[in-house]
């Protein structure tokens, strides 16, 4: 218990919150944990979706926010993770055993994408990542092993200690655990030697290089770690949906995840969380207005950017 209070304290410090805000955070956490007791399936589904996008946004935040690299093809890593898990489970492998493989494959994808291209200027990086995203999607669409355009269907639900995870509440908690882990890792990374190297490179690459930081290698680490977040999220996505198809990993998906990161405020963990929450909740709340909702979403995006160009929860410069 003392430990968890300590953790909460550290959270508070890292997030730069005052004591009262710390209490607010604790109340919020409690609400999040107790949500399934009061919510119906739909709310849980939306909440789970939110948690899922938080993991993705935190992963992309490492690439975009920490290391300052553009990535318009993040859905590719998410796809690699989802397909790896889906395919290996089709071969009869246990879900939990597919996770390390999914991570491995998505990290390899990160190296393939990052390796030859990280020397490029950031705008070219945008088109290259976009290209890789499309290549991944088209490849998944054309290959037999990925189920072609129909994708993989009938992916088994995983079980934990003999309990089959097939209720939305199960997935809610599963993704909640993922989010907590992702936040902890993101915070630790931010404060690590590597995290400082990223920040340094982001602020001034030449100076960083002069100080003995290898920019290409350091950037590649950002890609690899960001990719592994996407891979894990993808693996869990596959078993939650039980069906995955190439359309899910189209460019729009990558753009939405990037939007969550930048909307929230690049580089900040609460920002990524807020951005992801906004991204999922907004269209859901406005389901009632039908066709107009995505129009409103677009207009609101522009307005937010005009008034908060640094994002909803920007990084404070020291």
């Amino acid at each position, binding site marked *: 218990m003392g430990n968890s209070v300590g953790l909460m304290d550290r959270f508070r410090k890292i997030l730069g919150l005052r004591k009262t805000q710390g209490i607010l955070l604790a109340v919020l956490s409690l609400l999040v944990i107790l949500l399934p007791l009061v919510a*119906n399936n739909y709310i849980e589904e939306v909440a789970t979706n939110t948690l899922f996008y938080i993991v993705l946004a935190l992963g992309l935040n490492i690439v975009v926010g920490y290391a300052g690299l553009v990535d318009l093809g993040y859905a590719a890593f998410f796809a690699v993770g989802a397909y790896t898990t889906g395919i290996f489970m089709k071969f009869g492998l246990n879900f939990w055993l597919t996770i390390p493989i999914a991570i491995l494959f998505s990290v390899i994808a990160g190296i393939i994408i990052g390796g030859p291209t990280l020397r490029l200027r950031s705008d070219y990086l945008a088109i290259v990542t976009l290209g890789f995203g499309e290549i991944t999607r088209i490849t998944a669409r054309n290959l037999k092993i990925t189920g*072609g355009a129909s994708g993989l*269907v009938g992916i088994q639900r995983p079980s934990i200690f003999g309990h089959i995870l097939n209720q939305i509440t199960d997935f809610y908690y599963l993704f909640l655990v993922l989010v907590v882990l992702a936040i902890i890792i993101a915070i630790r990374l931010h404060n690590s030697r590597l995290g400082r190297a990223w920040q340094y490179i982001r602020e001034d690459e030449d100076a960083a290089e002069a100080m003995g930081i290898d920019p290409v290698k350091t950037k590649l680490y950002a890609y690899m770690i960001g990719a592994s977040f996407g891979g894990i999220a993808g693996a869990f996505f596959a078993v939650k949906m039980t069906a995955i198809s190439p359309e899910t990993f189209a460019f729009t998906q990558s753009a939405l995840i990037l939007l969550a990161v930048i909307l929230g405020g690049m580089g900040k963990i609460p920002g990524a969380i807020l951005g992801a929450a906004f991204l999922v909740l907004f269209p859901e709340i406005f389901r009632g207005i039908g066709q107009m909702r995505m129009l409103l979403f677009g207009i609101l995006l522009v307005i937010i950017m005009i008034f908060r160009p640094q994002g909803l929860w920007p990084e404070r410069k020291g």
Partner: protein
Amino acid sequence: MSKKFRSMVAVTILALALGVTGCGTQSSEPTTPSATPAAGGGEIIIGLPLPMTGSEATYGKDMENAIKMAVDEINGKGGVNGKNIVTVTGDDACDPQQATAAANKLVSQGVVAIVGGYCSGATIPTLTVYNEKNIPFVITAANSSKIAAQNPGNTFEINGTAVHQTQKAIELFKKLGAKNVAIVEQGDAYSSDLAKQTEDSWKAAGNTVVSHDVTNKGEQDFSSLVTSLKSKNADVVFWTAYYADGALLIKQLRQGGYKGAIVVGDGSSDPKLIEMAGAAGEGTYVLSPPVADYLPTAKQFAEAYKAKFNQSAGAYAPLAYDGMNLMADALKRAGSTDGKATIKALSDTKDFVGLAGKINFAADKTLKESNFIVLQITGGQFVLQ
């Protein structure tokens, strides 16, 4: 200033979250102001998962219109078991993730039955969502062969399946005396499924598939594809996807001097195909679900639809209309809104007469007999073959 703003943001997000909660438990779509989750009330709530946004929105709207026509008629005749039917539309945007959220929302709104389903890819992951609550689902358009394979038991397909359509296509190819068939699909679950099934069957019958091409949705230029198809000496070009891109392909095939036959699948069976393809469309064969305009039984429906919505009923309108009527009929036969009883009643459906013909279900809950028809564009109109 910054801190104040942050608290404001936090409060807003919290309010947004509460908004979802509110939406989920109490309010409903504006189209159904009286819908409440209480299933025991005087109404029967039926959910319509359809694409209302995104590039398939036109089809979703068309199906929603037809379903609402059926509902108005049913309610006009006193409803089902003394209760009126109320519909709630869930926008699946043709996207699996949004579809799952929409399905859960429909369940939360207390629907007792589901009618609709357009995109196969978006429909498949929702089947279990409904099945867990024993909610029967009549799919009126989506027809990938993966649906029957994944059916958890609550789902009934009243559109002919890809298997049915493939048989019809092969029959037609043989009738046309074709040897070399070129297949073009759009890389989505539906058109790719139909393309693959046709390729396999055509090859199994000892014939040649000279090429199997994939286009991207929204691509406008098929000229290089046309040249490539011509260079492979295809007798028949079979387009398995939707009318918008299909019309472009037909035009460009003719423009490029292709002389062979063109056959298009049921996704292209729409009066707009004729309008968009223009003169180039003449002679094109269309595999079609039973379309209102060519069904003597649906004449009244087609006219009523046109009068009400000021446009022709699309390809899936008759089936959507039939789907709602079938569901109402099953609810009547079950005598209650109990899910299991309704599913049983649907399974027991015998010779239900809809606009599109008789509905009987095979063991896998797809249509026992194919209802596909072959039309040909002649003189700017579809003519039944």
